[in-house]
């Protein structure tokens, strides 16, 4: 199949329609695209050095030279936001992947084999879920020390039980399907059943929820950065930027406002995308209303 035909097929499939079904989704797809673009190319697009001070030019308002103005030591806010995009967005992405790689196999095994494996796994998962939101991440940072890397692991551990529960539930339902039964009857072993019949059917729901988890991970990464438990200054991580702007909130709001707008737009666009994907791909919610 040629590239063009392949693209035609993607465009015709309902999956692609998700991204263009209405103007809200279209807008969020575009913002998501911008965010991904910023995360990849942001550092090289920054017009100024993101950590170069200019003490003669502090708290300057928006101008042609510094479109978002400058912060308390004269650093260009636009450059800092561009250069920091890959930190906040990348940390959240790696965190979600950590959670996925730990959680999905655990959920598959737990749901497929059941029994004591399942009991132990779910006890652990429930215990992690019993931890108040955000505090598990804070505790992991307490153990590993404040850094961007520890934030990734912390958020990954936080998101892991959600994947376990999600995939376990899906596996329990898929296990009873006729085609799985048929595969078992024809003598396929467990590994082959899991990889060929159950995992492929879990993928869509994992993608859908990953979008939502990613939005939460962005907020959480920014929160840890804000508390000073993440990337350390002068690193232009968006949460850490907000934290240093906070000290001068009454002098200039822009060093809080601009990073905040970028955190919000990133999280909002992924949340919207997650909602739209869920409408189309999650059969359970498809017939009902979305939350």
């Amino acid at each position, binding site marked *: 199949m040629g590239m063009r035909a392949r693209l035609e097929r993607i465009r015709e499939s309902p999956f692609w329609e998700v991204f263009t079904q209405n103007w809200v989704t279209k807008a969020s797809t575009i913002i998501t695209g911008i965010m991904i673009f910023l995360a990849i190319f942001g550092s090289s697009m920054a017009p100024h050095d993101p950590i170069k001070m200019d003490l003669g030019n502090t708290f300057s308002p928006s101008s042609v030279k510094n479109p978002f103005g400058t912060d308390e030591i004269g650093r260009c806010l636009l450059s800092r936001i561009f250069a920091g995009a890959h930190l906040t967005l990348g940390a959240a992405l790696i965190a979600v992947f950590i959670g996925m790689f730990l959680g999905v196999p655990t959920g598959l095994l737990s749901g497929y084999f059941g029994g004591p494996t399942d009991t132990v796994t779910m006890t652990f998962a429930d215990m992690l879920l019993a931890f108040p939101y955000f*505090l598990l991440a804070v505790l992991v940072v*307490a*153990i590993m020390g404040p850094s961007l890397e520890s934030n990734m692991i912390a958020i990954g551990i936080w998101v892991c039980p959600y994947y376990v529960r999600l995939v376990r539930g899906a596996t329990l339902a898929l296990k009873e399907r006729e085609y799985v039964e048929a595969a078992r009857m024809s003598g396929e072993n467990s590994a082959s059943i899991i990889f060929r019949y159950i995992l492929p059917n879990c993928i869509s729901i994992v993608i859908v929820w990953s979008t939502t988890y990613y939005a939460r991970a962005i907020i959480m990464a920014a929160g840890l950065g804000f508390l*000073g438990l993440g990337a350390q200054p002068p690193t232009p991580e968006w949460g850490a930027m*907000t934290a240093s702007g906070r000290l001068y*909130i009454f002098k200039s709001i822009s060093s*809080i406002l601009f990073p*905040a707008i970028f955190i919000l737009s990133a999280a909002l666009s992924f949340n919207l995308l997650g909602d739209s994907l869920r409408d189309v791909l999650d059969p359970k919610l498809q017939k009902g209303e979305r939350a």
Partner: protein
Amino acid sequence: MLVYLAKRLGRALFTLILLMTMVFFSLKLVPGDPVSVALGPGATAEVAQALRVKYGLDKPVLIQYLMFWKKLLLYGDLGVSWSSGIEVTRNLVPAIKHTAILTSSAMLIASLIGILAGVASAAVRNRPEDVAIRSSALIGISMPVFVLNLLGQYLFGYKLGWFPTSGAAGLANLVLPAVTLGIFVASSMVRMVRASMLDVLSEEYITTYRAEGFGKGAIMRKAFRNALRDISTIVGLQFGMLLGGSVLTETVFSWPGIGQYVVQAILWNDMPSVQGAVLFFAVSYMFINLLIDLSYPFIDPRVIRA
């Protein structure tokens, strides 16, 4: 009923013990010697050893673990803070008081907004009002709580000057942190309350009521009564979000609660204090959810029969 109660209580206690065990041993994994950190580089070996004995750090980890439970259960003692040298409980208790004030007022605001807006949104489903509520809720869950805090602080504290921007001197200081934290929690509550109301509204008995000619108000009241169990679960779940959010809110408004306390403890590598704070968070979260579990039979008698 008694069996139900015992089962729930037992499970909560088991989870709590498991959790504290995990926290204890994982905090032991923290690299670096806490004594040499506390004393600085100039300390002699004797002084360091004396401090180690004082904190019980010279004993094997397993003994330390048993001592931790013994001291906690017999004397309510959480050890001595490594950074200040004062008993953990002495600083923890006032912090807990402040956090309790903040979170309970925020919870009140959140439940009020969350339940009202959620039910209203379900009642006017897919009309412009519903779209407006849902969009605000979506923006609310996408906005980090500290951004909401900072915006409130800037707008109502600084620009308009209606409320103090930091500290915990009086009731006026409570307004901004409680309201902003409450709105943050409310926005995720709205979505869930709306979903559970819609679940109930799609039941067949509601259709029957409609066919019998009940008015919209009467039907919504019946639906609400039936969704109440789910809604109380939702409120309980949000309590975790509230505790987590309070860490950030307290930092923004310099509210001397446990959130600020735990962040300071982490930055100072002060493990007994971290342990104490975690214990508080876990106990209070479980306690609230236990209370909600226990209220089910009263809200919904079908629970006991199940």
